[in-house]
């Protein structure tokens, strides 16, 4: 046990996900030895986060203003919406540089075991957005796990009521750089059923 504030710092750092007591101690002593200006910057950022992070009023991702950068950008295609679970999924798709449309963040997946039903997600906002804007395609990009698939099933059922809307689901199959023989049968099965003509 260290004395006073140093131990407090180690305790607080140790509460972060993935940081054990040893890592917390290492980070604490790194901070003790670093430039006061660096620490000030970290403190400022933490204060800004504590003061409240804004969420985009249109798509629900983390934003600096009322609307996020993507929803403000007139060059983004407003007729295509990509539906994702979390703000970090927006970033993952942005990194591909393949998608030019806009996003809709649900804020999670349907998970009855954790008490998350349709009312806890931003599904109503999505339906309102589709009925008011000139949306022509919705890409469902929820995680390819049980909760994500169930959420996709639910969304497909809700979106069936829009006659001129194309609803698509992210393809799932073999990872790039992988070996066919090591693929599990579920993934390989999905890759086969979703095969495409070349």
């Amino acid at each position, binding site marked *: 046990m260290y004395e006073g504030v140093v131990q407090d710092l180690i305790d607080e750092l140790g509460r972060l996900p*993935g940081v054990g007591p040893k890592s917390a101690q290492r980070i604490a002593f790194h901070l003790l030895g670093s430039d006061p200006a660096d620490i000030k910057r970290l403190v400022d950022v933490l204060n800004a986060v504590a003061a409240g992070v804004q969420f985009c009023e249109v798509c629900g991702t983390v934003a600096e203003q009322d609307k996020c950068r993507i929803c403000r950008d007139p060059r983004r295609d407003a007729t295509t919406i990509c539906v994702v679970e979390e703000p970090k999924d927006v970033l993952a798709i942005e990194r591909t540089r393949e998608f030019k449309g806009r996003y809709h963040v649900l804020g999670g997946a349907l998970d009855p*075991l954790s*008490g998350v039903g349709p009312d806890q997600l931003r599904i109503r906002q999505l339906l309102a957005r589709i009925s008011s804007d000139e949306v022509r395609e919705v890409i469902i990009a929820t995680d390819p796990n*049980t909760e994500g698939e169930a959420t996709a099933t639910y969304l497909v059922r809700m979106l069936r009521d829009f006659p001129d809307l194309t609803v698509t689901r992210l393809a799932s199959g073999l990872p790039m750089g*992988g070996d066919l023989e090591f693929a599990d049968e579920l993934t390989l099965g999905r890759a086969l059923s979703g095969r495409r003509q070349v």
Partner: protein
Amino acid sequence: MANLYRDTGVVLRVHKLGEADRIITLLTRRNGKVRAVARGVRRTTSRFGARLEPFCHVDVQFYPGRSLDVITQVQTVDAFAQGIVSDYPRYTAAAAVVETADRLAAEEREPATRLYLLVAGALRALSAGERDPSLVLDAFLLRAMAYAGWAPAITECARCGEPGPHRAFSVPVGGVVCAGCRPAGAVSPSPEVIRLLGALLHGDWEVAERCQPSARRDVSGLVAAHLQWHLERQLRSLPLVERRAGG
């Protein structure tokens, strides 16, 4: 490697652990409820991550660890998950099945083969989609309660044992009650509701599927109330179960 052991089981729940691991809660045939660590299953390169999703029926090899066992190999026995997630009412019913099983198998490592068979049977029926998910769920809940020793009395009075049929049903007393024992707050379901309860408890699907939607709704309400009274707490998934209008 003498300590390795193998068992078949149904995945009840998964929890995230660290960067890419998961804690998997399984209900196994021989070892009861087992919580084990699956390393690296959240990475896209994982060789068995897809087999350890909720509702999967799998053959697993465990390596005993210090606090939790570690999963080293997984093979699929039945891929129930695909049939279940393709339909929202089935998904919510299956979630209620695994949550109930998780609560009833309170002690880890206590063999619960009958409960395991009930869960696997219920998930198989939901995945096949031949019966109303709501009826499958209620039949599972009734039989799981019978397994736990809380089967509602259906023919004889729950308090004095007088042979029925009786008209009143009381959740705190534990089933149908005769006119003499009837406490305040007992409900009077229609005779069809009592018949459906019996049919679901004993697996008489012909009778069950002939019952009216209104009777099915009343049965769902009674079963849910009976279960949560005995569990002494609310199930999170039960209010979210989507019951099809008109059965």
